[in-house]
């Protein structure tokens, strides 16, 4: 079974978004004096990056829905727990 045409372009786009998000998180912490807010942003951005890696590189975007939803559910639970533990 072949991946859809243009998958290389999708992977490259995903990678570019991941790199930009990484640099954004890095800069947010370097510049910000509001640590609690910055921490929430950093955890949120990390959760989005994990979702992109799973959906695009692991190809969960095209997988069975229950598997994709289980993965996305894990991201929501863990990022919520981390933000709650670190900022409440």
């Amino acid at each position, binding site marked *: 079974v072949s991946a859809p045409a243009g998958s290389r372009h999708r992977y490259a786009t995903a*990678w570019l978004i991941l790199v930009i998000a990484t640099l954004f998180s890095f800069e947010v*912490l370097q510049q910000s004096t509001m640590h609690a807010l910055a921490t929430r942003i*950093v955890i949120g951005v990390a959760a989005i990056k994990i979702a992109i890696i*799973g959906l695009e590189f692991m190809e969960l975007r095209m*997988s*069975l829905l229950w598997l994709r939803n289980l993965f996305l559910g894990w991201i929501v639970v863990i990022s919520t*727990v981390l933000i709650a533990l670190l900022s409440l």
Partner: protein
Amino acid sequence: VTISGESTVGRRTVGEIGIWIVIFGDLVMFGLFFSVYAWYYRQDPEVFAQGQSLLDRTIGLTNTLLLLTSSLFVAIATDAARQSGRRVTPGFAGGIACGLGFVALKALEWSAKFASGLAITSSDFFMYFFTLSGIHLAHVIVGLIVLTLMLRHCQRATTTRNVAMLESGAIFWHLVDMLWVMLFALLYLVRL
């Protein structure tokens, strides 16, 4: 339509079922590790912040970029393996090179810490830092072995079974990448 009533038209789960059991087992385990770390960070933020100030964030950033790039290489190589006539070797070789770069930087970072007298017993922060990044490093090394085997494997004829094995190895490597994304945020970036 599956027994759960879910439409499978146009959908395909890559890899073998066994690898997804490993993936979700690791996600649950690391989820617990991340939560325990956050809990103890909250209990003693001064000690954790002081420990974080002794880390080289640039190394953490570079390692993140290396793993993201390695995932790109591996994804492209896996896609190429599914399509006859496309070269697979450069992608896996690029992924391995980035992974080795990660290990080299990690070794450099740890040796600098040991040289300055820091160890796993120095503080609660460094106990978590060395333990969590050590467990992750073990995953990186296993992933590199898998990628090397894949590199040798993909030089043989590409069959459906071979492709499923390559996909499974690639999925494990992407797991290594995504776990580091959260570790980088927790160990190097968060501040209270």
